Protein backbone atom coordinates (compact mmCIF):
# COMPACT_ATOMS: atom_id res chain seq x y z
CA UNK A 1 0.00 0.00 0.00
CA UNK A 2 1.36 3.44 -0.92
CA UNK A 3 0.82 6.19 1.56
CA UNK A 4 -0.38 9.48 0.08
CA UNK A 5 2.29 12.12 0.55
CA UNK A 6 0.54 14.96 2.35
CA UNK A 7 2.09 17.72 4.49
CA UNK A 8 0.54 16.13 7.55
CA UNK A 9 1.87 12.71 6.55
CA UNK A 10 5.37 14.02 5.89
CA UNK A 11 5.67 15.48 9.38
CA UNK A 12 3.76 12.56 10.92
CA UNK A 13 1.20 14.94 12.37
CA UNK A 14 -1.70 13.52 14.31
CA UNK A 15 -4.27 16.33 14.28
CA UNK A 16 -7.42 16.16 16.38
CA UNK A 17 -10.81 15.54 14.83
CA UNK A 18 -11.85 17.74 11.91
CA UNK A 19 -14.54 20.39 12.17
CA UNK A 20 -16.18 22.66 9.63
CA UNK A 21 -16.05 26.30 8.65
CA UNK A 22 -18.44 27.94 6.22
CA UNK A 23 -17.25 29.30 2.89
CA UNK A 24 -19.75 31.19 0.74
CA UNK A 25 -22.59 29.28 2.32
CA UNK A 26 -21.20 25.74 2.15
CA UNK A 27 -19.27 23.72 4.73
CA UNK A 28 -15.52 23.28 4.32
CA UNK A 29 -13.59 20.74 6.37
CA UNK A 30 -10.86 22.14 8.63
CA UNK A 31 -8.36 20.60 11.03
CA UNK A 32 -7.56 22.04 14.45
CA UNK A 33 -4.77 24.61 14.10
CA UNK A 34 -5.24 25.15 10.37
CA UNK A 35 -5.45 28.66 9.00
CA UNK A 36 -8.49 29.56 6.93
CA UNK A 37 -6.28 29.70 3.84
CA UNK A 38 -4.93 26.20 4.50
CA UNK A 39 -8.43 24.81 4.97
CA UNK A 40 -9.61 26.42 1.72
CA UNK A 41 -6.59 25.13 -0.17
CA UNK A 42 -7.09 21.63 1.21
CA UNK A 43 -10.63 21.85 -0.13
CA UNK A 44 -9.36 22.85 -3.56
CA UNK A 45 -10.41 26.49 -3.33
CA UNK A 46 -7.69 28.74 -4.74
CA UNK A 47 -9.36 32.17 -4.88
CA UNK A 48 -11.57 34.01 -2.39
CA UNK A 49 -11.21 37.66 -3.29
CA UNK A 50 -11.47 39.80 -6.42
CA UNK A 51 -9.15 42.75 -7.01
CA UNK A 52 -10.37 46.32 -6.62
CA UNK A 53 -9.64 47.57 -10.11
CA UNK A 54 -9.70 44.61 -12.49
CA UNK A 55 -11.99 42.25 -10.55
CA UNK A 56 -9.39 39.46 -10.92
CA UNK A 57 -9.29 36.43 -8.58
CA UNK A 58 -6.85 36.30 -5.66
CA UNK A 59 -5.94 33.74 -3.01
CA UNK A 60 -2.73 32.97 -1.10
CA UNK A 61 0.52 34.43 -2.38
CA UNK A 62 3.07 34.65 0.44
CA UNK A 63 1.20 32.62 3.04
CA UNK A 64 2.99 34.34 5.93
CA UNK A 65 1.03 37.56 6.48
CA UNK A 66 3.21 39.93 4.52
CA UNK A 67 1.58 40.42 1.13
CA UNK A 68 -2.10 41.05 1.94
CA UNK A 69 -3.18 39.07 -1.14
CA UNK A 70 -5.26 36.45 0.69
CA UNK A 71 -7.83 38.84 2.16
CA UNK A 72 -11.40 37.74 2.70
CA UNK A 73 -14.39 38.74 4.76
CA UNK A 74 -14.33 36.67 7.97
CA UNK A 75 -17.30 36.70 10.32
CA UNK A 76 -18.45 39.92 8.65
CA UNK A 77 -15.08 41.72 8.91
CA UNK A 78 -13.49 42.48 5.54
CA UNK A 79 -9.75 42.46 4.76
CA UNK A 80 -8.78 39.61 7.07
CA UNK A 81 -5.55 37.83 6.15
CA UNK A 82 -6.78 34.25 5.84
CA UNK A 83 -3.23 32.89 6.06
CA UNK A 84 -3.06 34.19 9.65
CA UNK A 85 -6.61 33.76 10.94
CA UNK A 86 -7.25 30.29 12.43
CA UNK A 87 -10.13 28.26 11.04
CA UNK A 88 -12.23 27.92 14.19
CA UNK A 89 -15.36 25.77 14.22
CA UNK A 90 -18.17 27.79 12.67
CA UNK A 91 -15.98 30.55 11.18
CA UNK A 92 -17.88 32.17 8.32
CA UNK A 93 -15.76 33.15 5.32
CA UNK A 94 -17.15 35.05 2.36
CA UNK A 95 -15.51 35.93 -0.92
CA UNK A 96 -14.56 39.58 -0.80
CA UNK A 97 -15.36 41.87 -3.71
CA UNK A 98 -12.70 44.56 -4.05
CA UNK A 99 -11.96 46.42 -0.83
CA UNK A 100 -14.98 44.91 0.88
CA UNK A 101 -15.96 48.27 2.31
CA UNK A 102 -18.52 49.42 -0.21
CA UNK A 103 -20.79 50.35 2.71
CA UNK A 104 -18.45 53.23 3.67
CA UNK A 105 -18.28 54.95 0.27
CA UNK A 106 -19.49 58.54 0.09
Amino acid sequence: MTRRRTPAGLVEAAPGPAHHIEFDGRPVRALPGQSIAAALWADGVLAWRTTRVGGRPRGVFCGIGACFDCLATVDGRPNQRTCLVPAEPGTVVTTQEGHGRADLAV
Partner: protein
Amino acid sequence: MLKTHRPPLDVVVVGAGVVGAACAYYAARAGLAVAVVDRGPVAGGTTGAGEGNLLVSDKEPGPELDLALLSTRLWRELAEDLGPAMEYEAKGGVVVASTAAGQQALRSFAAGQLAAGVEAEEVPAERLRELEPHLAPGLAGGFRYPQDAQVQPALAAAHLLREARRMGAELFTGESVIAVDRGPDGAVRGVRTDRRRLAAPAVVNAAGTWGGELAALAGVRLPVLPRRGFVLVTEPLPRLVRHKVYAADYVADVASGSAGLQTSAVVEGTPGGPVLIGASRERVGFDRTLSQEVLRRLAVQAAELFPVLAEVVVMRTYRGFRPYLPDHLPAVGEDPRVPGLHHACGHEGAGIGLAPATGLLISEQLTGKRPELDLAPFRADRFPAA
Protein backbone atom coordinates in the same frame (compact mmCIF):
# COMPACT_ATOMS: atom_id res chain seq x y z
CA MET B 1 40.31 54.17 -10.60
CA LEU B 2 37.89 57.04 -11.00
CA LYS B 3 36.29 57.41 -14.39
CA THR B 4 36.03 60.91 -15.70
CA HIS B 5 32.78 61.89 -17.30
CA ARG B 6 33.52 62.93 -20.89
CA PRO B 7 30.84 65.18 -22.37
CA PRO B 8 30.93 68.54 -20.58
CA LEU B 9 28.24 69.03 -17.98
CA ASP B 10 26.60 72.31 -17.02
CA VAL B 11 25.34 71.14 -13.65
CA VAL B 12 25.47 68.21 -11.25
CA VAL B 13 22.39 67.74 -9.07
CA VAL B 14 23.09 65.84 -5.86
CA GLY B 15 19.92 64.09 -4.72
CA ALA B 16 17.31 62.09 -6.62
CA GLY B 17 14.39 63.00 -4.40
CA VAL B 18 11.56 65.10 -5.71
CA VAL B 19 13.49 68.37 -5.30
CA GLY B 20 16.55 67.07 -7.15
CA ALA B 21 14.26 65.60 -9.80
CA ALA B 22 12.53 68.96 -10.29
CA CYS B 23 15.89 70.75 -10.48
CA ALA B 24 17.05 68.28 -13.13
CA TYR B 25 13.79 68.58 -15.04
CA TYR B 26 13.76 72.38 -15.26
CA ALA B 27 17.52 72.58 -15.92
CA ALA B 28 17.25 70.04 -18.74
CA ARG B 29 14.24 71.87 -20.13
CA ALA B 30 16.32 75.05 -20.15
CA GLY B 31 18.83 73.25 -22.36
CA LEU B 32 21.49 72.50 -19.75
CA ALA B 33 23.56 69.31 -19.68
CA VAL B 34 22.59 67.70 -16.37
CA ALA B 35 23.77 64.79 -14.25
CA VAL B 36 21.91 63.61 -11.15
CA VAL B 37 23.70 61.62 -8.44
CA ASP B 38 22.22 59.89 -5.41
CA ARG B 39 23.83 57.50 -2.98
CA GLY B 40 20.56 55.55 -2.84
CA PRO B 41 17.71 54.95 -5.28
CA VAL B 42 15.28 57.53 -6.70
CA ALA B 43 13.02 58.82 -3.92
CA GLY B 44 14.93 56.73 -1.37
CA GLY B 45 15.00 59.39 1.37
CA THR B 46 12.39 61.81 2.61
CA THR B 47 10.50 61.85 -0.71
CA GLY B 48 9.69 58.18 -0.38
CA ALA B 49 8.47 58.75 3.19
CA GLY B 50 6.10 61.62 2.46
CA GLU B 51 2.39 61.91 1.89
CA GLY B 52 2.56 64.11 -1.19
CA ASN B 53 1.03 67.23 0.28
CA LEU B 54 0.89 70.23 -2.01
CA LEU B 55 -0.40 72.73 0.50
CA VAL B 56 -0.93 76.45 0.56
CA SER B 57 -3.42 76.24 3.44
CA ASP B 58 -0.86 75.79 6.20
CA LYS B 59 1.40 78.67 5.16
CA GLU B 60 1.24 82.21 6.46
CA PRO B 61 1.97 85.09 4.09
CA GLY B 62 5.68 85.31 3.38
CA PRO B 63 8.40 83.84 1.21
CA GLU B 64 7.38 80.20 1.76
CA LEU B 65 3.81 80.93 0.71
CA ASP B 66 5.11 82.70 -2.41
CA LEU B 67 7.06 79.54 -3.26
CA ALA B 68 3.97 77.43 -2.60
CA LEU B 69 1.74 79.56 -4.82
CA LEU B 70 4.25 79.40 -7.66
CA SER B 71 4.48 75.64 -7.15
CA THR B 72 0.71 75.28 -7.24
CA ARG B 73 0.69 76.68 -10.76
CA LEU B 74 3.68 74.58 -11.81
CA TRP B 75 2.22 71.32 -10.45
CA ARG B 76 -0.88 71.91 -12.57
CA GLU B 77 1.31 72.34 -15.65
CA LEU B 78 3.37 69.26 -14.75
CA ALA B 79 0.22 67.20 -14.30
CA GLU B 80 -0.69 68.06 -17.89
CA ASP B 81 2.81 67.56 -19.29
CA LEU B 82 3.73 64.39 -17.42
CA GLY B 83 0.35 62.70 -17.48
CA PRO B 84 -1.75 60.86 -14.89
CA ALA B 85 1.03 58.57 -13.65
CA MET B 86 2.00 60.94 -10.80
CA GLU B 87 -1.48 60.57 -9.29
CA TYR B 88 -1.90 64.34 -9.14
CA GLU B 89 -5.24 65.23 -7.57
CA ALA B 90 -6.50 68.80 -7.28
CA LYS B 91 -8.70 67.71 -4.40
CA GLY B 92 -8.52 70.80 -2.20
CA GLY B 93 -7.93 70.98 1.52
CA VAL B 94 -10.32 71.31 4.44
CA VAL B 95 -9.05 72.60 7.78
CA VAL B 96 -11.40 72.05 10.69
CA ALA B 97 -11.69 73.64 14.12
CA SER B 98 -13.20 71.93 17.13
CA THR B 99 -13.95 75.12 19.08
CA ALA B 100 -15.31 78.58 18.29
CA ALA B 101 -11.98 80.07 19.33
CA GLY B 102 -10.23 77.73 16.93
CA GLN B 103 -12.55 78.76 14.12
CA GLN B 104 -11.84 82.43 14.89
CA ALA B 105 -8.10 81.70 14.69
CA LEU B 106 -8.63 80.04 11.29
CA ARG B 107 -10.60 83.10 10.17
CA SER B 108 -7.84 85.56 10.97
CA PHE B 109 -5.19 83.21 9.49
CA ALA B 110 -7.20 82.94 6.27
CA ALA B 111 -7.72 86.70 6.08
CA GLY B 112 -3.96 87.21 5.82
CA GLN B 113 -3.67 84.43 3.24
CA LEU B 114 -6.49 85.85 1.09
CA ALA B 115 -4.56 89.12 0.83
CA ALA B 116 -1.54 87.15 -0.35
CA GLY B 117 -3.41 85.40 -3.17
CA VAL B 118 -4.61 82.21 -1.48
CA GLU B 119 -8.14 81.02 -2.21
CA ALA B 120 -9.96 80.20 1.03
CA GLU B 121 -13.63 79.85 1.84
CA GLU B 122 -15.16 79.61 5.30
CA VAL B 123 -17.28 76.53 5.86
CA PRO B 124 -19.87 76.81 8.63
CA ALA B 125 -20.26 73.80 10.91
CA GLU B 126 -23.54 72.68 9.33
CA ARG B 127 -21.95 72.50 5.87
CA LEU B 128 -18.83 70.56 6.85
CA ARG B 129 -20.47 67.18 6.32
CA GLU B 130 -21.59 68.13 2.82
CA LEU B 131 -17.88 68.35 2.03
CA GLU B 132 -16.83 65.38 4.18
CA PRO B 133 -19.74 63.12 5.13
CA HIS B 134 -17.69 61.03 7.58
CA LEU B 135 -16.42 63.99 9.63
CA ALA B 136 -17.20 63.87 13.34
CA PRO B 137 -20.28 65.77 14.44
CA GLY B 138 -19.90 68.76 16.72
CA LEU B 139 -17.01 70.53 15.01
CA ALA B 140 -17.11 74.33 15.16
CA GLY B 141 -16.42 74.90 11.46
CA GLY B 142 -13.61 75.03 9.01
CA PHE B 143 -12.07 76.48 5.88
CA ARG B 144 -11.84 75.01 2.40
CA TYR B 145 -8.68 75.65 0.37
CA PRO B 146 -9.31 74.69 -3.27
CA GLN B 147 -5.63 75.13 -4.26
CA ASP B 148 -4.40 72.33 -1.97
CA ALA B 149 -3.56 69.23 -3.95
CA GLN B 150 -1.78 65.89 -3.76
CA VAL B 151 0.66 63.74 -5.72
CA GLN B 152 2.20 60.36 -5.08
CA PRO B 153 5.68 61.68 -4.26
CA ALA B 154 7.85 58.76 -5.35
CA LEU B 155 6.00 58.59 -8.68
CA ALA B 156 6.35 62.36 -9.10
CA ALA B 157 10.13 62.17 -8.57
CA ALA B 158 10.43 59.20 -10.93
CA HIS B 159 8.43 60.82 -13.73
CA LEU B 160 10.25 64.15 -13.42
CA LEU B 161 13.52 62.25 -13.77
CA ARG B 162 12.16 60.21 -16.66
CA GLU B 163 11.34 63.43 -18.49
CA ALA B 164 14.70 64.97 -17.57
CA ARG B 165 16.48 61.91 -18.99
CA ARG B 166 14.40 62.06 -22.14
CA MET B 167 15.81 65.57 -22.53
CA GLY B 168 19.36 64.28 -22.07
CA ALA B 169 19.99 64.26 -18.32
CA GLU B 170 22.04 61.41 -16.87
CA LEU B 171 21.22 59.60 -13.64
CA PHE B 172 23.72 57.87 -11.36
CA THR B 173 22.05 56.09 -8.44
CA GLY B 174 23.83 54.11 -5.75
CA GLU B 175 26.83 56.46 -5.92
CA SER B 176 27.89 58.57 -2.98
CA VAL B 177 29.36 62.01 -3.45
CA ILE B 178 32.64 61.93 -1.53
CA ALA B 179 34.00 65.37 -2.46
CA VAL B 180 32.97 68.67 -3.95
CA ASP B 181 35.82 69.97 -6.08
CA ARG B 182 36.64 73.67 -5.93
CA GLY B 183 39.11 75.71 -7.93
CA PRO B 184 41.75 78.13 -6.65
CA ASP B 185 39.14 80.90 -6.79
CA GLY B 186 36.89 78.87 -4.48
CA ALA B 187 34.26 78.19 -7.15
CA VAL B 188 32.92 74.66 -7.54
CA ARG B 189 34.26 72.53 -10.37
CA GLY B 190 32.14 69.46 -9.90
CA VAL B 191 31.93 66.46 -7.62
CA ARG B 192 33.65 63.15 -7.10
CA THR B 193 31.61 60.07 -6.33
CA ASP B 194 32.91 56.70 -5.23
CA ARG B 195 32.89 55.73 -8.93
CA ARG B 196 33.57 58.78 -11.06
CA ARG B 197 34.45 62.40 -11.40
CA LEU B 198 31.71 64.71 -12.67
CA ALA B 199 33.14 68.07 -13.72
CA ALA B 200 30.68 70.96 -13.91
CA PRO B 201 30.68 74.67 -13.11
CA ALA B 202 27.58 74.28 -10.93
CA VAL B 203 26.47 71.82 -8.25
CA VAL B 204 22.94 71.73 -6.86
CA ASN B 205 22.63 70.54 -3.27
CA ALA B 206 19.30 68.71 -3.31
CA ALA B 207 20.40 66.25 -0.64
CA GLY B 208 17.40 67.00 1.56
CA THR B 209 17.90 66.09 5.20
CA TRP B 210 21.54 65.31 4.40
CA GLY B 211 22.08 68.73 2.73
CA GLY B 212 24.21 69.89 5.65
CA GLU B 213 26.69 67.10 4.95
CA LEU B 214 26.96 68.04 1.29
CA ALA B 215 27.40 71.72 2.21
CA ALA B 216 30.21 70.67 4.55
CA LEU B 217 31.93 68.85 1.67
CA ALA B 218 31.90 72.22 -0.13
CA GLY B 219 33.34 73.88 2.97
CA VAL B 220 30.27 75.73 4.23
CA ARG B 221 27.85 75.32 7.11
CA LEU B 222 24.15 74.72 6.51
CA PRO B 223 22.32 73.65 9.69
CA VAL B 224 19.82 71.13 8.27
CA LEU B 225 18.38 68.93 11.03
CA PRO B 226 16.09 65.90 10.80
CA ARG B 227 12.54 66.21 12.12
CA ARG B 228 10.95 62.79 12.32
CA GLY B 229 7.42 62.02 11.23
CA PHE B 230 5.29 58.86 11.11
CA VAL B 231 2.47 58.00 8.72
CA LEU B 232 -0.17 55.31 9.24
CA VAL B 233 -1.51 53.45 6.21
CA THR B 234 -4.96 51.89 6.43
CA GLU B 235 -6.36 48.97 4.48
CA PRO B 236 -7.64 49.97 1.02
CA LEU B 237 -10.99 51.70 1.35
CA PRO B 238 -13.52 53.31 -0.93
CA ARG B 239 -13.15 57.05 -1.19
CA LEU B 240 -14.37 58.06 2.26
CA VAL B 241 -12.17 61.11 2.72
CA ARG B 242 -12.49 63.45 -0.24
CA HIS B 243 -10.11 66.30 0.60
CA LYS B 244 -6.91 66.76 2.55
CA VAL B 245 -8.46 67.17 5.96
CA TYR B 246 -6.58 68.34 8.98
CA ALA B 247 -7.14 69.84 12.39
CA ALA B 248 -6.38 73.51 12.98
CA ASP B 249 -3.59 72.63 15.46
CA TYR B 250 -1.51 71.38 12.55
CA VAL B 251 -0.66 74.92 11.46
CA ALA B 252 0.76 75.71 14.90
CA ASP B 253 2.72 72.43 14.95
CA VAL B 254 4.30 73.15 11.58
CA ALA B 255 5.44 76.58 12.72
CA SER B 256 6.74 75.36 16.07
CA GLY B 257 10.44 74.95 16.71
CA SER B 258 9.97 72.60 19.66
CA ALA B 259 12.06 69.46 19.79
CA GLY B 260 9.33 67.61 21.68
CA LEU B 261 6.67 65.40 20.15
CA GLN B 262 3.79 67.14 18.42
CA THR B 263 0.96 65.37 16.67
CA SER B 264 -2.09 66.67 14.83
CA ALA B 265 -4.31 64.71 12.52
CA VAL B 266 -3.82 65.06 8.78
CA VAL B 267 -6.03 62.61 6.88
CA GLU B 268 -6.33 61.90 3.18
CA GLY B 269 -7.46 59.20 0.82
CA THR B 270 -5.31 57.99 -2.07
CA PRO B 271 -6.11 56.70 -5.56
CA GLY B 272 -4.68 53.35 -4.43
CA GLY B 273 -7.33 53.03 -1.72
CA PRO B 274 -5.49 53.33 1.60
CA VAL B 275 -6.09 56.37 3.79
CA LEU B 276 -2.88 58.06 4.99
CA ILE B 277 -2.80 59.43 8.52
CA GLY B 278 -0.15 61.92 9.72
CA ALA B 279 1.35 64.03 11.11
CA SER B 280 3.88 63.85 13.89
CA ARG B 281 6.93 65.97 14.46
CA GLU B 282 9.83 65.37 16.82
CA ARG B 283 13.52 66.09 16.77
CA VAL B 284 15.23 62.86 17.72
CA GLY B 285 18.08 62.79 15.18
CA PHE B 286 18.00 59.94 12.66
CA ASP B 287 16.45 57.49 15.13
CA ARG B 288 14.29 55.06 13.13
CA THR B 289 12.84 53.26 16.18
CA LEU B 290 9.12 52.65 15.92
CA SER B 291 7.31 54.75 18.51
CA GLN B 292 4.06 53.20 19.68
CA GLU B 293 3.20 56.41 21.51
CA VAL B 294 3.33 58.40 18.27
CA LEU B 295 1.30 55.79 16.39
CA ARG B 296 -1.28 55.68 19.16
CA ARG B 297 -1.70 59.44 19.18
CA LEU B 298 -2.02 59.62 15.40
CA ALA B 299 -4.66 56.89 15.39
CA VAL B 300 -6.65 58.48 18.21
CA GLN B 301 -6.61 61.94 16.63
CA ALA B 302 -7.59 60.62 13.21
CA ALA B 303 -10.50 58.69 14.72
CA GLU B 304 -11.61 61.82 16.57
CA LEU B 305 -11.81 63.62 13.22
CA PHE B 306 -13.29 60.66 11.29
CA PRO B 307 -14.99 58.23 13.72
CA VAL B 308 -15.37 55.69 10.88
CA LEU B 309 -11.59 55.19 10.96
CA ALA B 310 -11.83 53.60 14.40
CA GLU B 311 -13.31 50.56 12.65
CA VAL B 312 -10.72 50.14 9.90
CA VAL B 313 -7.43 48.29 9.99
CA VAL B 314 -4.06 50.02 9.89
CA MET B 315 -1.97 47.92 7.56
CA ARG B 316 1.45 49.42 8.08
CA THR B 317 3.34 52.52 9.09
CA TYR B 318 6.38 54.33 7.78
CA ARG B 319 8.59 57.11 9.01
CA GLY B 320 10.84 59.72 7.49
CA PHE B 321 12.98 62.70 8.35
CA ARG B 322 11.99 66.18 7.27
CA PRO B 323 14.93 68.44 6.45
CA TYR B 324 14.46 71.21 8.97
CA LEU B 325 16.25 74.58 9.02
CA PRO B 326 15.98 76.70 12.19
CA ASP B 327 13.76 79.41 10.63
CA HIS B 328 11.53 76.89 8.73
CA LEU B 329 12.53 78.30 5.34
CA PRO B 330 14.43 76.24 2.79
CA ALA B 331 17.81 77.12 1.35
CA VAL B 332 17.26 77.93 -2.33
CA GLY B 333 19.75 79.55 -4.65
CA GLU B 334 23.46 80.12 -5.09
CA ASP B 335 25.55 80.22 -1.94
CA PRO B 336 27.25 83.64 -1.68
CA ARG B 337 30.19 81.89 -0.01
CA VAL B 338 30.86 79.34 -2.76
CA PRO B 339 30.32 80.43 -6.38
CA GLY B 340 28.57 77.70 -8.35
CA LEU B 341 27.11 75.92 -5.29
CA HIS B 342 23.32 76.12 -5.43
CA HIS B 343 21.23 74.91 -2.53
CA ALA B 344 17.80 73.34 -2.98
CA CYS B 345 17.14 71.72 0.37
CA GLY B 346 15.72 72.25 3.84
CA HIS B 347 12.06 72.32 2.78
CA GLU B 348 11.01 70.52 5.97
CA GLY B 349 7.60 68.88 5.46
CA ALA B 350 6.78 70.90 2.35
CA GLY B 351 9.41 69.57 -0.05
CA ILE B 352 7.03 67.76 -2.35
CA GLY B 353 4.87 70.84 -2.72
CA LEU B 354 7.75 73.29 -3.11
CA ALA B 355 9.82 71.14 -5.48
CA PRO B 356 8.76 72.61 -8.85
CA ALA B 357 9.18 76.24 -7.77
CA THR B 358 12.58 75.38 -6.33
CA GLY B 359 13.62 73.62 -9.53
CA LEU B 360 12.40 76.43 -11.75
CA LEU B 361 14.10 79.16 -9.69
CA ILE B 362 17.39 77.24 -9.62
CA SER B 363 17.27 76.73 -13.40
CA GLU B 364 16.60 80.43 -13.90
CA GLN B 365 19.59 81.28 -11.76
CA LEU B 366 21.75 78.69 -13.56
CA THR B 367 20.89 80.19 -16.95
CA GLY B 368 21.55 83.75 -15.83
CA LYS B 369 17.92 84.82 -15.79
CA ARG B 370 16.42 86.87 -13.05
CA PRO B 371 14.54 84.37 -10.84
CA GLU B 372 10.82 85.10 -10.75
CA LEU B 373 10.87 85.25 -6.96
CA ASP B 374 13.37 87.08 -4.77
CA LEU B 375 15.71 84.43 -3.40
CA ALA B 376 17.16 86.62 -0.62
CA PRO B 377 15.01 85.04 2.17
CA PHE B 378 16.35 81.61 1.18
CA ARG B 379 20.06 82.46 1.27
CA ALA B 380 22.14 79.71 2.80
CA ASP B 381 24.43 82.12 4.67
CA ARG B 382 21.59 83.61 6.74
CA PHE B 383 22.45 81.50 9.80
CA PRO B 384 25.07 82.60 12.29
CA ALA B 385 28.35 80.70 12.14
CA ALA B 386 28.50 77.82 14.62
